[in-house]
C-alpha cells in the first residue's frame, strides 16, 4: 500500500470543512486525517467544525418543510407545452395550404391582384406647386416682385429706382441676376400690376413679374 501524500498545514486546514461533511475523496481524506493527527491546531479546528456541523444540522432540522405541491409547476409546464404545440400546428396548417402548386399559383395571383388594386386606388399626393429656384419659401406676407435688371444699371441708378418706387431688396441677386423686391407700402392688385408695368417699361429692367404667393394685400 502506498503511503498517503503529505499536505501542507494550509492545504489541510482549508479542506477540514469538507472532511467534516464527508465529501472528500478517499485519498484527500486520508492525507488530511494524517495531517490532523499530528497538528494540534487542525485537531482543535476539527472539533470546532464538528460542533458547528452538529449545530447547523440540528438547526436545519428545526425547519418544517411543506409537502411537495406540484400544482403550480404542472400548470406552468402545461402552458409551456401548449405554447410549443401551437407553433408547429400553425406551420403544419400553412404547409397543408401550400401543398398543391395550383393553390400556390392561386394565392400568388390573388396577392398580386390585391397589390395592383392597392397601387391604383392609393390616393396620390397632390403635385407640389410650381416654384422657381429663386423663389424664397420664407417670405413674410406682403407683395413681392421678381426683377432682372440690365447689366448696365449702376448702383446709383438702382438705388434711385428702388427709392422712387418705394421698393426694397428682399432677396438676391441670384446667380442668374434675379432680385426679389418687396413693396414698402400696402397696395391693391391693380396698383401692383401698374408697378409691374412701370418696371417692365423701364429700359434698365429686363424682366419683372409678381411673386405668386396666392394672396395680395
Amino acid at each position, binding site marked *: 500500500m502506498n503511503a498517503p501524500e503529505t499536505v501542507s498545514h494550509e492545504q489541510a486546514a*482549508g*479542506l477540514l*470543512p*469538507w472532511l*467534516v*461533511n*464527508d*465529501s*472528500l*475523496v*478517499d485519498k484527500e481524506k486520508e492525507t488530511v486525517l494524517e495531517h490532523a493527527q499530528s497538528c494540534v491546531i487542525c485537531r482543535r479546528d476539527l472539533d*470546532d*467544525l464538528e460542533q*458547528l*456541523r452538529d*449545530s*447547523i*444540522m*440540528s*438547526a*436545519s432540522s*428545526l*425547519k418544517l*418543510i*411543506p409537502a*411537495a*405541491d*406540484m400544482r*403550480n*409547476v*404542472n400548470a*406552468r*409546464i402545461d402552458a*409551456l*407545452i401548449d405554447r410549443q404545440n401551437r407553433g408547429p400546428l400553425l406551420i403544419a396548417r400553412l404547409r397543408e395550404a401550400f401543398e398543391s402548386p395550383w393553390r400556390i399559383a392561386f394565392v400568388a395571383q390573388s396577392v398580386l391582384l390585391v397589390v395592383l388594386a392597392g397601387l391604383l386606388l392609393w390616393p396620390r399626393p397632390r403635385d407640389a406647386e410650381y416654384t422657381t429656384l429663386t423663389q424664397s419659401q420664407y417670405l413674410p406676407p406682403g407683395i413681392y416682385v421678381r426683377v432682372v435688371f440690365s447689366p448696365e444699371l449702376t448702383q446709383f441708378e438702382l438705388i434711385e429706382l428702388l427709392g422712387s418706387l418705394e421698393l426694397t431688396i428682399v432677396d438676391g441677386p441670384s446667380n442668374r441676376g434675379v432680385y426679389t423686391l418687396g413693396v414698402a407700402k400696402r397696395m391693391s392688385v391693380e396698383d401692383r400690376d401698374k408697378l409691374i408695368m412701370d418696371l417692365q417699361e423701364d429700359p434698365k429692367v429686363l424682366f419683372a413679374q409678381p411673386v405668386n404667393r396666392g394672396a395680395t394685400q
Partner: protein
Amino acid sequence: MPNSIAGKGATEADELALLARVRRGDREAFCELYQRYQPRLYGYLRRQLSDPGTVEEVLDDVMLVVWKDARKFRGDAAVSSWIFGIAYRKAMTAMRTERRYQAPLDRSANADAVAAVSSQHDEWIPVALMHLSPDHRQVVELTYFSGFSYQEIAEIVGCPVNTVKTRMFHARRRLRVLLPALAGQAKEQDRERA
C-alpha cells in the same frame, strides 16, 4: 449528506436516467425528480429567503428551468450540482429583489433576532449566518446544510475551487467572532430576564 462513493454513484446514475426521461418530456420522471429535490431545495431556499411564499415560487421557477433545460444538461457536473446551480442563481436574484424592497425591514429583523436569541447554541447559527456576506453564507450553507464537496460548490456557484476554499476560510473566521459574541449577548439577556 453524501454517503459512500458507491451509493453516491448509484444515486447519480439514477438521477441521470431520470433527467434523460425528463428530456424526452416524461412528466412522471419529472414528478419523481421534483419529489426528490423538493425538500433539499426548499431547505436551501428557505435559509436564503425570508418570505415562504417567495421560496415556493423560486422553487417552482427552478424546477421549471429543469424541465425546460433538461436537454441542455451535458453531464459535465452532477445532476445535483446542476440543479443547485440553477437554484443558487435564482436565489441570488430573489435575494437581491428582497434586499431592494425589504432592506430596512431585514436589518431590523436581524437585530430583533439577535436580541431574542436564547442560550441555545443551535439557534445562534441562523442568526450568525445572516451576518455573513451572501457569497460566504452560500459556501457554508452548501457545505453543511446540503453536504456538497468543494468541487461541487465551485460548479454550483460558478467560481474556481480555490475561491470556494477562501470564502469558507473567511466565513469560518467571521463565525468564530460572531458565535461567542452572540452567546455572550444571549447569556446577558438570560441573566437580565432572570
